[in-house]
């Protein structure tokens, strides 16, 4: 599967109706891309004390990463059939300067509905802390 050419960013606010685990009360985010930090995307919460996250398309880490959405998630996103969804895995900075990527619970965003959610599944193929290695 071809990875997107541009850093993932969308104009407009993304609504996460359930928030993100640990940040359930923050439901509005914007996605910021920049040539400075391509291929990363900043997921920035809107409002006071809103969290921000760094993310990367999981297919940049593993080209075989499955980007198939379950029917419940698809309904919750309101995604259209055949729509190209945005997939983002959260990057966690480590104190030693390295970083890991959460490939187990990716975030998926529908560009048509501007709605997003984080996938919480018991699938254990991928790690919550996959090492982010320089290519």
């Amino acid at each position: 599967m071809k990875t997107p050419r541009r850093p993932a960013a969308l104009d407009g606010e993304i609504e996460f109706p359930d928030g993100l685990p640990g940040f359930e009360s923050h439901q509005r985010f914007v996605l910021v891309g920049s040539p400075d930090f391509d291929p990363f995307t900043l997921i920035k919460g809107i409002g006071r004390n809103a969290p921000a996250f760094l993310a990367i398309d999981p297919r940049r880490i593993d080209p075989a990463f499955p980007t198939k959405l379950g029917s419940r998630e698809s309904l919750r996103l309101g995604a259209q059939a055949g729509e190209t969804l945005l997939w983002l895995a959260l990057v966690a900075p480590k104190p030693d300067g390295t970083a890991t990527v959460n490939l187990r619970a990716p975030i998926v965003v529908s560009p048509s509905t501007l709605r997003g959610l984080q996938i919480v599944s018991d699938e254990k193929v991928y790690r919550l802390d996959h090492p982010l290695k320089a290519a």
Partner: protein
Amino acid sequence: MLVFTRRLDEAIVIGEGIEVKVLRIGREGVRLGVTAPPEVPVHRREIYEQIRAANTEAAARAEALAKLASRLAKQKPDDESD
């Protein structure tokens, strides 16, 4: 906490459209079937907690993350081929 005794194939109903049914009772555990509208998130608690911990570790101030991203982007040249 409400406590119920349920047997195989018996269920409890929560609000409108949510049902939790006992599908199997085994030595290792009880298999439950949950019927809920798609807008109601249903998760295994311990998995949700693991993701909550991972998210908490990943969250930071936007400025700090932008700096980190620039540094990581330099380490990780765009390996895309056309």
